[in-house]
């Protein structure tokens, strides 16, 4: 592509994206948080469903049941049960709440808290305007802390292009009967900690907004939300050294922090501090960058049934106290208690005794 074409393409970026990158400014609306009760698990019975149909009426029951159905779908899609993910938190669906913002489930991967929610009512027309003309944001009411949310699509699904995304959203994340949209809020754990400090409470008022075209945002919630527990297993590699023949460089692989949905590879090498501070020599860093990637991508995590898993490339690589921390994330859970071996080429980093 020529420079002129690239310029033309960049000139076509929607105003919403330009505005969101200019300044982060989710509107702050002060509303008292509602109270809900959190429970680890919920058993659905026909009797309860029948009682609710009588108590709430058919429409309210349809909304209530889509919350429960989405919880089941999420649990299956994220492979929670088969991988013993104890850090996965499923919320009680309030019987009395027919619309608004409903927390479905949440999991803390150490860096981000993935929060799955339903919002309603969202008309089909509004839902069909995503991604072209609709944005979803979460924020903590009473603060300027917030971020983006997006329709929750199945983990393995890969779509591209506005039409394909719209169709996938309508098929997978939207329920027309109950006018409910299922979203995932991507919440940096640090943001919630900041909000907790600012508001002086562990239960922060979380709300979601839907912005359709030029219209005023539609607000759902707030509901009280608190950080959930992490589930982390640390593998100490005893300062293993990996020598890369091709690059002729040595890298020390210190350890691995593994959660069901993320990993932090801890590595160290000569000059790492310089490369990870501003003004570093990017050309000199390049081979080390390749080696950093190699550790994340080519190391195999092997489970009891012989299956192998790669964490994929790192999303961020902050340097701290002599260590480069390479954060990686993925869609559905792995069983971190079932790891038997961790190997990079011929180098065995860890093995179950």
């Amino acid at each position: 592509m020529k420079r002129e074409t690239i310029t033309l393409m960049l000139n076509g970026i929607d105003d919403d994206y330009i505005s969101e990158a200019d300044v982060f400014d989710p509107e702050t609306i002060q509303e008292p948080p509602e109270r809900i009760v959190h429970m680890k698990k919920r058993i659905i019975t026909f009797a309860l469903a029948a009682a609710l149909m009588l108590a709430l009426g058919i429409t309210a029951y349809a909304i209530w049941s889509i919350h429960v159905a989405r919880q089941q779908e999420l649990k299956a899609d994220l492979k929670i049960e088969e991988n013993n993910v104890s850090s996965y938190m499923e919320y009680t669906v309030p019987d009395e709440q027919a619309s608004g913002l409903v927390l479905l489930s949440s999991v803390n991967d150490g860096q981000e808290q993935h929060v799955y929610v339903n919002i309603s009512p969202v008309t089909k027309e509004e839902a069909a305007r995503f991604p072209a003309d609709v944005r979803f944001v979460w924020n903590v009411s009473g603060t300027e802390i917030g971020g983006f949310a997006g329709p929750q699509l199945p983990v393995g699904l890969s779509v591209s292009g506005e039409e394909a995304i719209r169709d996938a959203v309508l098929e997978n994340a939207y329920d027309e009967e109950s006018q409910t949209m299922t979203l995932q809020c991507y919440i940096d754990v640090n943001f919630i900690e900041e909000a907790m400090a600012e508001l002086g409470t562990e239960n922060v008022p979380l709300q979601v907004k839907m912005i359709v075209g030029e219209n005023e945002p539609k607000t759902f919630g707030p509901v009280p939300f608190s950080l959930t527990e992490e589930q982390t297993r640390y593998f100490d590699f005893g300062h293993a050294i990996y020598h890369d023949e091709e690059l002729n460089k040595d890298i020390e692989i210190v350890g691995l922090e593994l959660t069901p949905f993320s990993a932090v590879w801890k590595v160290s090498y000569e000059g790492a501090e310089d490369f990870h501070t501003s003004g570093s020599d990017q050309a000199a860093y390049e081979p080390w960058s390749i080696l950093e990637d190699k550790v994340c991508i080519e190391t195999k995590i092997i489970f009891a049934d012989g299956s192998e898993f790669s964490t994929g490339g790192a999303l961020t690589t902050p340097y701290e106290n002599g260590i480069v921390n390479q954060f990686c994330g993925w869609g559905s859970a792995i069983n971190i208690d079932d790891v038997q071996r961790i190997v990079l080429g011929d180098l065995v980093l860890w093995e179950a005794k």
Partner: protein
Amino acid sequence: MTDTEIINLFFERSEQAITELAKKHGSAVARVARNILGNEQDTEECVNDTYLGTWNAIPPHKPSPLRTFVCKIARNLATMKYHSNTAEKRNSQYDLALDELEECLSDNGSVEEAYEAKELREAINGFMATLNHFDRFIFMRRYWYSDPVKDIAKMADSTTNSVTVRLFRIREKLRLYLEKEGLLV
């Protein structure tokens, strides 16, 4: 003064509108222009042209948010000026940002490029929708606002290296996305 009050001044055709606009959004406008043009003289001209463009556009437009509106005008004017400048005069963050994208998005075909603005717009916005908030933020700061990587790292409370690596991966994603969409051979 609020944006609505500034827009009202434009509607009243009061020259105070320009003063208030400059006071409130002048630094953002200048930053966009400076990042693209790389020199103060061109930047100053571009900023003044942006104010004139805004004066001509409001009314009838009643933009919201105003800042995005004026930054877009500034960027369009600055990129036009950039492309009309001689190669020797080009030396800006915009150059570096375009170099990064051009290198990543180079295709193998020798066919003349004939893209329609509409398909490019749909493709880039479709791609933007696939990014998470943080990636979208750094992509926009680097390639739309043409900010230096070190400034983006500071804004995002991250390191230059981390932002550089992340931008590299976003560019790769963009390349794959455009290939899928048939815009890159």
